[in-house]
């Protein structure tokens, strides 16, 4: 599907649909689209509706404390910001962390990834595909047969089990409880699953809820507590002593490490027997819904993650790189320090730079708000009816890689890993595409299937599988290293600020659940002088730039037909496939208590 990627190619003459806020995401986001006479989206405008105070809160503070603050900026990305922050400080000060710390950070980071991906699919995204009200019509026996077919290895498959779930759902819906399923458009023909598949998905919603609370216990073991586990510049905030036999509060010992192993195995089983089969089953039924590609397949960026040999980025399990202009034959190298590569622009964002400044590398980043509306805005500053996207229209800045708008996230990581020759990823993707083609009778190639809303959702599930599988390796490597006599978990040589240079700058990177994440720090006289973060949703939710290049959210919505423009199921489906987190990319507060997003057609 050929998607226009420049504002100059977009047609904004049709009816304008405003979705505000976009629900079931972290943070506050608004989206406006124009639909033509056939209800096909021809122009899309996405905007973050608050600005973020993260960077400015950190000025003048102790760099060793930054992780604790950034952990609070948002409710879902806690650990990934904390990890990226300690990496930025370590980079600035030249601190190498011990191998145990390297492995424990991997285990914690992958735990977060697995947790986030599972909760995203079952508790935020599934309702874009699954109709829980329709599940009330399901035959529990037929559901049991479906479950056995979709995943023979999954134990919870008896008719009685599904009858119980259905009864529980019935009771819940009849009690008129608002909240969980209240915001749906349940009679919209965009929902296509048979009742049995809907019931199976509701059962897995509950199973996923049980699973997620187990997997996060790994954070409690290594990070002292959850929510908000502890991080440490120089290593990890736990001690190791395999001879110890104490319970909670004691150093990490064999009892707690075995506990960790069990949690990994549980999550791995769930991912292979439930999550992946569910995604493929949904994809099979929505086989004609291959919309939502946008920048995916065209411009993709990854900083790379899960470095196997500490300090050697060429050993990343998911490698760094950039693909531009749809050329999958060439993965370009990415350097987050190069001031020519990553720059942020504010031509369409509610900030201003000093006169004459165009793009700024984050080390020189500036966050000075400038809230002004373009002449074609409808409404007023306090009540915008329609944005003027030709002018400033978002609190999200526009980051660019060598001038290109980029998509980041699991799908970008996966396409880059695939074309970089990572065999594990190739096997996963090939296996999944073969299953999809077999289920549907289609013969889609990679480039037809992956750059889509479904492809984005599949990549997230595959990445969850990768994390579970390789956590077993990390766990074993940790045990081996400890048994070889290494108990060290932190390097404190440079803990004391008197050992630091007068000025230093560093960058911490990570591939967060939502994509490429970078924290750039400048330290002066032992204090934070400047701190800038470019979070994944800044990339994906980016507004236009001076050249008219549109961001990933905007591009992904184009050409999508809507069943009913007043019920934005299709918009939510595609935006949710990015797992947006506006709390980090903007600063968020919703203004009232409305649960239902307001959809206005003008």
């Amino acid at each position, binding site marked *: 599907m050929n998607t226009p990627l420049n504002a100059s190619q977009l047609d904004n003459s049709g009816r304008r649909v405003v979705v505000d806020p976009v629900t079931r995401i*972290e*943070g*506050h986001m608004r989206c406006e689209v124009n639909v033509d006479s056939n209800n096909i989206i021809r122009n899309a405008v996405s905007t973050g*509706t*608050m*600005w973020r*105070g993260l960077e*400015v*809160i*950190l*000025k*003048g*503070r*102790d760099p060793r*404390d930054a992780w*604790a*603050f950034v952990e*609070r*900026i*948002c*409710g*879902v990305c*806690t650990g990934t910001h904390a990890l990226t922050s300690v990496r930025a400080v370590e980079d600035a000060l030249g601190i190498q962390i011990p191998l145990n710390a390297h492995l424990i950070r991997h285990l914690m980071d992958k735990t977060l990834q697995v947790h986030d991906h599972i*909760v995203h699919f079952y*508790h935020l995204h599934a309702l874009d595909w699954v109709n829980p009200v329709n599940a009330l019509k399901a035959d529990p026996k037929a559901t049991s047969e479906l479950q056995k077919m979709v995943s023979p290895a999954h134990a919870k498959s008896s008719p009685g089990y599904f009858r119980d779930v259905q009864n*529980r*759902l019935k009771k*819940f819906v009849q009690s008129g*409880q*608002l*909240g*969980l399923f209240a915001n749906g458009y349940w009679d919209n023909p965009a929902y296509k699953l048979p009742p049995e598949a809907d019931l199976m998905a509701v059962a897995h919603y*509950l199973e996923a*809820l*049980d699973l*997620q*609370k187990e997997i*996060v216990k790994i954070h409690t073991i290594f990070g002292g507590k959850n*929510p*908000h586990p*502890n991080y440490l510049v120089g290593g990890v905030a736990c001690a190791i002593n395999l001879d110890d036999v104490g319970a909670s509060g004691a150093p990490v010992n064999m009892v707690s490490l075995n506990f960790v192993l069990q949690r990994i195995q549980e999550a791995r089983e769930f991912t292979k027997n439930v999550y992946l089969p569910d995604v493929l089953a949904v994809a099979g039924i929505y086989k004609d819904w291959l919309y939502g590609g946008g920048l995916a397949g065209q411009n993709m960026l990854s900083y790379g993650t899960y470095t196997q040999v500490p300090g050697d980025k060429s050993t990343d399990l998911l490698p760094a790189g950039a693909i531009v202009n749809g050329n999958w034959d060439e993965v370009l190298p990415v350097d987050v320090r190069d001031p020519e590569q990553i720059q942020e622009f504010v031509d369409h964002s509610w900030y201003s730079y000093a006169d004459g400044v165009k793009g700024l590398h984050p080390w020189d980043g500036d*966050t*000075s*708000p*400038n*809230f*002004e509306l373009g002449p074609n805005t409808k409404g007023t*500053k*306090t009540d*915008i009816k329609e944005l003027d996207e030709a002018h400033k229209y978002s*609190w999200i800045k526009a980051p660019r890689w060598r001038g290109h708008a980029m998509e980041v996230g699991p799908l970008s990581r996966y396409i880059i890993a695939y074309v970089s020759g990572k065999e594990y990823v190739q096997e996963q993707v090939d296996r999944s595409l073969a299953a999809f083609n077999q289920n549907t009778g289609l013969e889609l190639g990679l480039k037809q299937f992956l750059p889509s809303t479904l492809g984005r959702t599949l990549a997230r599930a595959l990445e969850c599988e990768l994390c579970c599988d390789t956590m077993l390796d990390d766990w074993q490597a940790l045990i081996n290293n400890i048994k070889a006599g290494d108990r060290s978990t932190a390097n404190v040589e440079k803990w004391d600020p008197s050992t630091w240079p007068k000025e230093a700058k560093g960058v911490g990177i990570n591939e967060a659940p939502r994509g490429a994440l970078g924290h750039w720090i400048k330290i002066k006289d032992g204090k934070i002088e400047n701190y800038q973060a470019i979070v994944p949703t800044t990339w994906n939710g980016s507004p236009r730039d001076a050249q008219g290049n549109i961001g990933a959210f905007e591009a992904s919505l184009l050409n999508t037909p809507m069943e009913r423009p007043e019920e934005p199921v299709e918009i939510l489906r595609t935006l949710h496939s990015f797992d947006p987190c506006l*709390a980090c990319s903007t*600063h*968020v*507060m*919703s*203004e*009232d*208590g409305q*649960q239902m997003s307001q959809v206005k057609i003008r």
Partner: protein
Amino acid sequence: MDKQFLILGIGNLLWADEGFGVRCVEYLNQHFEFPANVELLDGGTQGLYLVQHVQACDVLMVFDAIDYGLEPGTMKIIRDDDVPKFMGAKKMSLHQTGFQEVLATAEFAGGYPDELLLVGVQPEALEDFGGSLRDVVRAQIEPAVKVVLDFMAERGLVPQRREQVLDSTELSPNQLAMADYEAGRPAEDAACRRGDIRFIPSTCLQGDSN
């Protein structure tokens, strides 16, 4: 088995009065020692990720800053079935949708607490990034804490007052403890503190646009 009590503070401590809930549990922990069947939790803005803690308790007590449209600093006590309604009816920050959903999820999945108590305080200011509690809200920490202590005492549970008040929070990293958090705040001219006027009237931004 003893009843399980959960005392939960929710909100974002980076946004002025939004930090009220977290500061209340911090205060409780600094001044009292609790038996093992009482959990104190700084829930931040964790939303759905708090559901297992809710499911695991019999008695849930929540501190939060909630907009009831009352005078700033007004304390409001909500019980049982009214709690989810209040947490959804008029929310001004993202975690409150989250928490209403947490309660709904706990009901659907099983493990809804037998008793709920919400101690809410009307905030004065939220639009102050990196700021701390305003005086009228700060003055409600001790009264709010007393409400929870009385509520527990009615259920036969009286925590022991610590001989020495803790400096640290223990529930959060110490750099976030109220005193450290306030002392390390950057100057106003170094760091703009305000937000978007569509939600919050802000003289700073209105000035920019003239």
